[in-house]
């Protein structure tokens, strides 16, 4: 058994106006990986490739040890997939969908399905066309979760949900992870959702993975330093500082590999360090994307 629920190595896919460029991504067993990227970054294409729905031009894709897309049928028995563009059948009821999925998956947990039905405020006899967007998303997740898959692949599942519905869904995903053998790949452009539940974060932009690491390490390594720069003092170029914005005597430096020595180095150069601030995941994400685009453009 592999140590990774998902392994993508050197995956490339070219379209006329977009391409995935050498994607390397590994999701360890028992971990929640948040895949963050702006709209059109390649999140959905990456996920479709790992579900076998889109064939990569080159590169190796393994899901739960199965080669994709060739072994997609074997892999999908243990993968629960839900995407923002997935819809249930309007004319059928929630209960009909539950019976349909139950008839396919022998591991369907009826008691858990009933519990989720209650927890999500759904009724089995409701037709899908009568449900709100939030209820539809919950119904879809119910169908995925009650199968008890080893791996959950969720492509922007919280898009368009109100805060309460988002909270309910994220809480349920956190509950799912009480079973340590299960893994989740969770894509979103909402960094708050990802920050709340993920163990690991991967940033993707314009078809390239621009960074991937443990969430706590991210939050620990990224800092914003507010500086006062006296006239005549030039700030030194320091390793680990990816961006400096200066307006008169005030400057803001962004560090992606913060070390207390950086502050010392600025002080030694004659600048005064006013504060060293933690950054939110959203701020890290934006700074990371902008830095990456500058590097590509340079």
């Amino acid at each position: 058994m592999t140590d990774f629920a998902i392994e993508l190595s050197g995956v490339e896919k070219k379209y006329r106006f977009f391409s995935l460029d050498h994607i390397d991504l590994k999701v360890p067993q028992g971990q929640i990986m948040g895949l963050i990227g702006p709209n059109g970054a390649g999140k959905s294409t990456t996920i479709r490739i790992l579900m076998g729905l889109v064939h990569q031009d080159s590169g190796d894709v393994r899901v739960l040890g199965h080669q994709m897309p060739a072994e997609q049928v074997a892999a999908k028995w243990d993968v629960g997939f839900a995407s923002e563009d997935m819809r249930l059948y309007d004319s059928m009821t929630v209960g009909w969908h539950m019976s349909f999925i139950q008839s396919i998956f022998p591991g369907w947990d009826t008691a858990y399905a009933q519990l989720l039905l209650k927890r999500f405020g759904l009724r089995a006899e409701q037709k899908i066309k009568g449900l709100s967007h939030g209820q539809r998303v919950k119904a879809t997740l119910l169908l995925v979760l009650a199968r008890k898959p080893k791996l959950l692949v969720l492509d922007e599942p919280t898009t368009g949900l109100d805060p309460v519905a988002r909270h309910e869904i994220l809480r349920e995903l956190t509950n799912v992870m009480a079973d340590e053998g299960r893994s989740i790949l969770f894509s979103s452009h909402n960094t708050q959702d990802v920050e709340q539940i993920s163990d690991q974060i991967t940033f993707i932009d314009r078809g390239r993975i621009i960074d991937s690491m443990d969430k706590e390490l991210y939050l620990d390594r990224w800092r914003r330093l507010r500086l006062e720069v006296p006239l005549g003092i030039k700030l030194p170029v320091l390793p680990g500082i990816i961006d400096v914005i200066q307006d008169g005597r005030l400057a803001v430096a962004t560090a992606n590999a913060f070390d207390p020595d950086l502050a010392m180095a600025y002080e030694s150069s004659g600048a005064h360090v006013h504060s060293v601030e933690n950054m939110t995941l959203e701020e890290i994400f934006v700074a990371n994307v902008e830095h990456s685009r500058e590097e590509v453009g340079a």
Partner: protein
Amino acid sequence: MTGSVVGHLIMKDWQIHRVPILVTMAAGAVALGIFQRGGETAFVVGSVWFFVALIVIASILPIFAIVNERKKQNLPLVMSLPVSTMQYTTAKLVSTVGMFLAPWLTLMIAALVLIEVRGILPHGTIPITLILLMLPLVGFCFIAGTALVGESEGWGTAATVVCNSSYGLVWYFMTKIPALMDTWKSPVAIWSPTAMAIFGGELAFLPLMLGLTFYLQSRKRDFI
């Protein structure tokens, strides 16, 4: 286990689309009821209604079961299940062809019984009746195959327009074929070489269209 998933997908389609099948059977039964009353008006009204019922189901079933599944974004749900693209194609073709054959076979048998047993029309009409009845089936396979391969409402609609506008033309040209028209008043069914060739051509089109659909589906690299 995968075979059973294909079976479940077929059953799913039958459950979702049972209403149009039942409506077609009911409409066809009413048409045959009118038809068997006798007289020229009943014959014209009954046969027109009968063929319209089959043509309508041949047009709407591929749109409901194939085009709408993609348009209404149900396809990601289906493809999240343990099936491959080809297994999905198999399930979809078996279910839609089966759903069409249910009313088609029922109504065809009912029509033949009316001719053969009740003597509503001369037995000489059997070859032309079967040839005409094959047309909606041929049209259905063309629309279903195009809708599956084309992956868009546009292709499905285009195939439907082509088929529906062709029925009248094909019927018109058939009335100009002496080998078909000269024998319809015969008390026995006469399968002339021309009638056999047309019927054989219609039959041959079915596996050709379905085979082509499978082939083109197997070459796809991006399914959603």
